[in-house]
C-alpha cells in the first residue's frame, strides 16, 4: 500500500540558510500534519492543512511557513535556520473527519534536518 512520502530524507544546512521539506500524502488523504521531533523528545505538532487551507497551528516559529497544494502535497519552508531547528520533521496524512468518521494519521519516514 502507498505510504506517506517525504523528501529529502536528510538535509544539512548552515545557520541562517533556508530549507524546504516536502510531503506527499497517501492518495485520497486530504489532511496533512507536520510534527517536529527534537533529539530525545516527543513529536510536537507544528501545523496542519485540510483541503489546502490551514486547519490548525501549533508551536510553529514565525520563521517557518507551510502550504498545501492542489495535488495535496505539502511543503514546509524554514528560513533563518537556527541550531535549535535540528530535528526530525514528520509529515502525517489522514482522511478528514468531516463526514463524521474518525481516522488515524499515517506518518512518513521523516526528514532529518541538521543545522550546523
Amino acid at each position, binding site marked *: 500500500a502507498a505510504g506517506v512520502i517525504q523528501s529529502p530524507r536528510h538535509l544539512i544546512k548552515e545557520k541562517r540558510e533556508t530549507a524546504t521539506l516536502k510531503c506527499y500524502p497517501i492518495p485520497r488523504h486530504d*489532511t496533512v500534519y507536520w510534527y517536529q521531533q527534537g533529539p530525545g523528545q516527543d513529536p510536537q*505538532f507544528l501545523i496542519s492543512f*485540510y483541503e489546502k487551507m490551514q486547519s490548525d497551528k501549533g508551536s510553529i516559529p514565525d520563521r517557518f511557513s507551510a502550504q498545501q497544494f492542489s495535488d495535496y502535497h505539502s511543503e514546509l519552508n524554514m528560513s533563518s535556520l537556527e541550531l535549535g531547528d535540528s530535528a526530525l520533521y514528520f509529515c502525517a496524512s489522514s482522511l478528514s*473527519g468531516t463526514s463524521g468518521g474518525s481516522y488515524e494519521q499515517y*506518518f512518513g*519516514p*521523516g526528514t532529518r534536518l541538521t543545522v550546523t
Partner: protein
Amino acid sequence: AQSVSQHNHHVILSEAASLELGCNYSYGGTVNLFWYVQYPGQHLQLLLKYFSGDPLVKGIKGFEAEFIKSKFSFNLRKPSVQWSDTAEYFCAFRTDSWGKLQFGAGTQVVVTP
C-alpha cells in the same frame, strides 16, 4: 491544559517478560487514543487506537490496550515481549476526530535476550 503523561521513561526487561506501559491524559471530554511505536531510526508506526466502543483494543504484534475512562488511562500491554520489541513507545491523544495529536514523552523499552 490538555496533556498526556507516560509513567516510565525507560523500561528494561527480559524476553518473555510481560510489559505494561502506563498512559494518562488530561481532558474532560471525548478523546481518541493511540499508541505508536518508533523503532530506532524509523518513523512512527501505529500499534493500536481507540475511538469508541469496546475499551479493550487489540493491535498489531500482540499488543493490546485498555481504555479506562474513569481513570483517564490507556495502558499498553503485551504478555510476552521479544527482543524485536525494543523501541520507543508513544502514547498520544486528540480531542476531535481529525485534529492534531498530542504525544506523551515516550517510553524507551529495551528487551534483553
